[in-house]
């Protein structure tokens, strides 16, 4: 019997993952309110210094996304653990790389959607102005979310086997995301405050390199992670 190729399997699984997210909208709503609460807490913690809040707005956006990502990534593997569906996919058999690509892209889409919703909140809450073209901000959000999703999906799969999975995932994920977090936060700050020195492309290049490395590693290593 002829099996679907990598891209066809990825597409089937990606649609399945999005359908599962849609069916569990309560979880998506919880993610949104968690991110909003994080942004609010940052603004309350730093007081009414609007200049300081505006200057750090990029960092708040990415910290809110990063904290939300731990919930989203953990949830995406809880669904697969529930009835051992990940094992079921392996035994179909589905190419493990297709499972990784579908899950990582679905996680990136979810996080990018969340990022897109948080930007107007930042504008309203912290009086942030978008100086560079909006397209550049959206592109940066997408690159940043891809940077979180690839290692997040890989480590989410590793952590899903552990008993202390909820603690293990951030412990594994946060340290390696530091370069991506710095690049995304700095790039976002430039979008909000202007880029007179032309630094924006450098941060985008760093983020793109991070994406290429970790998506490559994910595709390479995920089959080993999901095998016994």
């Amino acid at each position, binding site marked *: 019997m002829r099996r679907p190729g990598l891209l066809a399997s990825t597409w089937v699984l990606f649609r399945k993952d999005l359908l599962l997210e849609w069916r569990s909208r309560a979880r998506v709503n919880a993610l949104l309110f968690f991110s909003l609460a994080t942004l609010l807490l940052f603004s309350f913690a730093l007081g009414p210094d609007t200049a300081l809040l505006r200057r750090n707005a990029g960092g708040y956006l990415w910290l809110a996304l990063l904290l939300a990502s731990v919930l989203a990534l953990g949830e995406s593997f809880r669904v697969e653990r529930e009835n051992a569906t990940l094992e*079921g996919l392996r*035994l*179909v058999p589905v190419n493990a790389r297709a499972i990784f690509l579908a899950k990582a892209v679905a996680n990136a889409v979810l996080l990018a959607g969340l990022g897109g919703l948080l930007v107007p909140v930042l504008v309203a809450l912290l009086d942030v102005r978008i100086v560079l073209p909006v397209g550049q901000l959206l592109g940066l959000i997408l690159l940043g979310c891809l940077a979180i999703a690839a290692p997040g999906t890989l480590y989410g799969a590793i952590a899903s086997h552990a008993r202390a999975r909820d603690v293990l995932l951030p412990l594994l994920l946060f340290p390696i995301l530091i370069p991506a977090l710095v690049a995304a936060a700095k790039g976002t700050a430039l979008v909000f405050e202007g880029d007179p020195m032309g630094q924006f492309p450098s941060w985008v290049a760093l983020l793109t390199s991070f994406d290429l490395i970790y998506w490559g590693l994910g595709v390479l290593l995920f089959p080993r992670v999901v095998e016994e």
Partner: protein
Amino acid sequence: MEIRGPEPIGCKNCRTTGSLGANGTWAACVSRRFRTVHLSSNDVELAPALHLHEVSKRYGARWALVRVSLTVRRGTALLLTGHNGSGKTTLLRVLATAVRPSSGKVEILGLDAALEPERVRAQVGLLSHAHYVYEDLSGLENLLVLARLLREPGSAATEALERLGLSPKDDRPVRTYSAGMRRRLALARLFLKRPAVALLDEPFVELDPTGVAELEARIRELRSAGTTLVLATHHIEQGLQLCTDRLHLEQGRSIAA
């Protein structure tokens, strides 16, 4: 047909050291001179459905299987019996390549499970204690995902559901299904795949009497279609009616019954 592997598994070029038997029994080539093994399609057809050689599996300090050897011809229905914890589920999971044995060799339809797990998985279907279904999708949606991955038409998913007494129009999520309905859905997954080797772990559990009768009929259909069957159950009388051979396991060791 050419199969590459680290060990020869039946070499046409190695007449002196052994070859496949004409009656389908497996006599592996023991020569290590040839790393490339040439099998004709006729040879592959002659290979037994299952061949285990000295297979052991250890979980931590506990041995779930101890040097189990077994050869099952194609089309055989093997009844697997034993007390709880005797290794039935582990044996089925090893055969399905869901777990790797700690030692020993497993061949399914002439394919080495350690070297070619993907090809083995394409031929094997496992009905496990876990149902492999998504709780937030309906029964039909679950089967449609599988059908697309198997390149089967959507109508095959509908047909598989109907054959197991489930309605394709029922759009409730699986989360709301009863235990028996979940079992039927798991069986529908298996029938949709139409494997050459079907491994059934306690298939009658959670089914009502009607479901049991229907499942027995489906199992007989599988058998008449030439599917090799391994059925693990505590319902020995029921199993004996469906199976031709029997293997009893005690503390991970095989005892011919």
